[in-house]
């Protein structure tokens, strides 16, 4: 759920950029160090970033007939962990702004916060939490991807509510209003993205366990027996 260029008032745009900046900087430093230690990591990350962009450009079938697209937030968090996703997500969002005119430069900070910081952390936390409770992997992955998406939408609704408080009922009323718009349109999408992520992770576990190991992915994903 991208906030379009120029949609946020200048103060809000600047504030969200300031909030996101430290996360992205820490992530950039970490990724830079990883890339210096292992040059092949750079290519792996580049391939994954390009993949995330292409995935987001693929139209997702939606129940209401309108098309929307996957955020890939959950998948990214599952594969790389949230600390890498902050930078990778920022790069993907930058490309979406400059290659698709989707999102924007002034709203980059706000979009990064919802999609590259909060979404991945929620997804990762849920994956770890549910795995700690010994839930089946498919259930964990589904919940992580779906609720990661929902977290992203909720944050976006919150950002919009803060920027455009309702004249009568304030920020809370505005938040309810925006969630009211998002819930019916985005909830089915989140469910679809959850299912999609399960299909992808299953496929990767069957055929790409070596690559997954390279990615330092979440341990449970590849320590299971590989089916012949």
């Amino acid at each position: 759920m991208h906030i379009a260029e120029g949609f946020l008032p200048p103060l809000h745009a600047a504030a969200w950029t300031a909030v996101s900046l430290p996360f992205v900087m820490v992530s950039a430093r970490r990724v830079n160090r990883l890339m210096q230690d292992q040059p092949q990591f750079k290519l792996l990350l580049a391939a994954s970033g390009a993949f995330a962009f292409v995935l987001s450009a693929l139209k997702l079938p939606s129940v209401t007939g309108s098309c929307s697209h996957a955020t890939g937030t959950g998948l990214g968090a599952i594969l790389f962990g949230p600390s890498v996703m902050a930078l990778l997500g920022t790069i993907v969002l930058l490309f979406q702004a400059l290659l698709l005119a989707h999102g924007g430069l002034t709203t980059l900070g706000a979009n990064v916060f919802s999609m590259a910081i909060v979404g991945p952390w929620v997804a990762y936390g849920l994956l770890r939490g549910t795995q700690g409770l010994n839930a089946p992997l498919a259930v964990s992955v589904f919940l992580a991807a779906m609720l990661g998406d929902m977290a992203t939408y909720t944050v976006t609704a919150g950002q919009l509510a803060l920027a455009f408080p309702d004249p009568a009922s304030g920020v809370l009323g505005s938040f309810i209003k925006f969630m009211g718009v998002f819930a019916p349109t985005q909830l089915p999408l989140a469910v679809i993205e959850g299912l999609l992520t399960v299909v992808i992770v299953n496929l990767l576990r069957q055929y790409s366990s070596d690559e997954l190991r390279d990615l330092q992915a979440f341990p449970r994903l590849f320590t299971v027996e590989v089916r012949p």
Partner: protein
Amino acid sequence: MQAIDHHAWTNRWRSRHPAEKLLPAVSLLALTLILPPLNIGPLALTGATLATVYGAQVPLRTVLKVLAAPTAFLLAGAPFLAVSLDFSHGFSLHFSADGVRLALETTVRALAAVSCLSFLALTTPLADWAPLLRRVGIPSGVIELILLVYRLIFVFAERALTGRQAQTARLGYSRPDRSVRSLGLLAGSLFQRSLEQARRLEIGLAARGYRGELRVLTLEQPLSWARLTAAMAFVVLIGVMGGLLAQVWT
């Protein structure tokens, strides 16, 4: 995406120094955000579109196509800004003059900003951003990562399209449940092949003595101060006109 990238590489201002396009576009973007939107918005929208169509010679059709998607989103969202939710007497929804004004201002501001963004996207290839990113202190490793992503996006997009065509021909998208499965398989196999591609790149580069630094030749484009000044003057003119309009109206 292909259209935007195509025009970014082939427009008339392609060979201009990136700063000549970036600085005016970003300044105009800043102006549209800061000044009262109803005055500066239409001017900035016109200015940025004129610069794209007459300056950079990007066909108007392409510009409109690029603007169409964000515009549709904005128009769909505007009513929700205009509608106001009231809890004070139970639960009621109503339009208010303030809300309508807010919706109008936001939509106009966003439209103007999107036109600045599309000017940038249509005239400056992403590869040209690299020197600017270096200047603002982004580590060279991260910039290389960005350039690699840029290259790979087009490789993967082509694969995704081919895969999707093949699946569609086999009725893979004939029902919603099939669509989810097909898309999952497509994404999964795309990811596998992306990783394969990364591995092949890595082997190829290692064979050429790769030590974690990619050296490429870039086109040297001299910065023309005259052109930059003219472009900035144009932006300032738009700003001043917007400011004057605001005075006249109030």
